[in-house]
């Protein structure tokens, strides 16, 4: 963990245009929550729909892609990563630091707003807000590190990431039961299910994966992606301008 690397990463990640996008997404969630609460009052079913179907299924993966790829993608793309790599710094340290910055961004722009949205929609009833916030946090961290790795491996990380988030998670996940075992969304939903506890089944907060499988899988993805990203950075090739 290196403070200077973190500072430089944070500054380029929260550059103007990306920052607007990062702020706009949770803003939409909050507006939607307020509108739903206004329209339908406090309703656990709607809360599950908004938090599970919108926040966890769409918002968190998108923010994970933006934060994860944005933490290293542009620097590799325009070659300014050379300034980090031509130093006596362990590549694993660089990867871990960047992952932490991405995680911080995802926490602030995805997990926290999910919690607030949950409070707006249902207050503290059934621990839905907390449950989904924790699920969003876990999913956000997993997506962030995974897409960081993807950004080190390919220049088309964003498109691949979006394909994963939309096609794999949303479409195939709904149609092919086996695929759900390999879905970050399902793993984090297991955490949510655990926190919501008693009323989970009644509210249809259920994951295709048990907690015993979800937690190790999440850890494997998070730690593995970060480590592998550091490993790939050791042999990164500098390219000339396109």
């Amino acid at each position, binding site marked *: 963990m290196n403070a200077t690397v973190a500072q430089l990463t944070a500054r380029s990640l929260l550059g103007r245009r990306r920052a607007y*996008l990062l702020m*706009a*997404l949770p803003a939409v969630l909050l507006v939607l929550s307020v509108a739903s609460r206004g*329209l339908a009052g406090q309703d656990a079913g709607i809360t599950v729909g908004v938090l599970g179907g*919108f926040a966890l299924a769409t918002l968190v993966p998108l923010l994970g892609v933006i934060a994860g790829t*944005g933490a290293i993608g542009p620097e590799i793309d325009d070659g300014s990563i050379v300034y980090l790599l031509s130093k006596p710094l362990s590549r694993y340290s660089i990867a871990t630091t960047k992952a932490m910055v991405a995680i911080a961004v995802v926490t602030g722009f995805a997990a926290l707003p999910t919690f607030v949205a949950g409070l707006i929609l249902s207050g503290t009833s059934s621990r839905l807000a907390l449950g989904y916030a924790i699920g969003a946090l876990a999913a956000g961290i997993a997506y962030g590190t995974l897409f960081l790795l993807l950004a080190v491996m390919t220049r088309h990380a*964003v498109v691949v990431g979006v394909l994963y988030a939309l096609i794999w998670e949303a479409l195939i996940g709904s149609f092919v039961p086996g695929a759900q075992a390999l879905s970050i969304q399902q793993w984090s939903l297991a955490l949510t299910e655990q926190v919501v506890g008693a009323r989970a089944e009644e509210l249809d907060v259920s994951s295709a994966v048990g907690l015993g499988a979800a937690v190790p899988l999440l850890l494997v993805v998070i730690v593995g992606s970060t480590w592998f990203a550091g490993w790939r950075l050791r042999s990164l090739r500098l390219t000339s301008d396109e």
Partner: protein
Amino acid sequence: MPAPRTNQGVIHDLGYRHYDGPRLGRAHIARALLLESAKGAYGLGRSARSKVMPMLLLAAICLPAFIIAVVAAVTDVDELPADYTSYVLNVQALVMIYVAAQSPALVSRDLRFRVMSLYFSRPLHRIDYVVAKYAAMTTAVFLLMALPLTIMFVGALLAELPIDEQVPDYLRSLGGALLTALVLSGIGLVIAAITPRRGLGVAAIIAVLAVLAGVQGAMQAIAVEENEATVAGYAGLISPFTLVHGVQHAVLGAGSALSEGPPGTIGSVVFVVVTGLVVAGSFGALLLRYRKVAV
């Protein structure tokens, strides 16, 4: 080089030749730009790598249509297993990804590498550039949706389903596809033109489209549950797909796959007006953006 004065040799001028003849005008340039951009949206005329994503998406979007057509042709059915006019709604994820992936390919590269001066030092006006790019993207997205619809239509013909039922529906769906293409291209190109960074452009377009679709779905579900029919109807304005679907239903007379179409005549008018505003607004935004581009 001067020839020696003594003998009668000749030295021919093999240097640069100046062209003084007639030149093709603005319209030709714009048309060429349109064609090249439209082909480029499918990777034709570009590297093999840039063909992968669009061709993959094209194949993916045609696959269900192909299956439907085969099923219809082979088995004995009274009507197609799926609806022309709601096909686009069902595959909207793929269309979204296509727009997100290819809008930057059309527009961001020119801005990122600052070659706009090469375009505008020819008799090409900025409005020509915008029109050409907008038309090219619309054509590409339209083809993406028209191809599967046509496959289904061919399947219907092979299954000898009654033509007078199939043709109007098919034509309506094509009209809807065209409108969808216009709306989506507008949104995609505006976002891509603002963020010359390709990765960010893709993410931003997907974010906008997916979020709009998600919000629309949520609002509609909530409104239906609360028996707020008008709200449910107007919720369709939020997402471009449902917006056009609403116009298709209200104006072109297609069936509606949503639980609530645009409420009444006022609703229809609103839907049409909003569609027009989005298209005009996108075009205007693009013009503004390119007016500011430094040459």
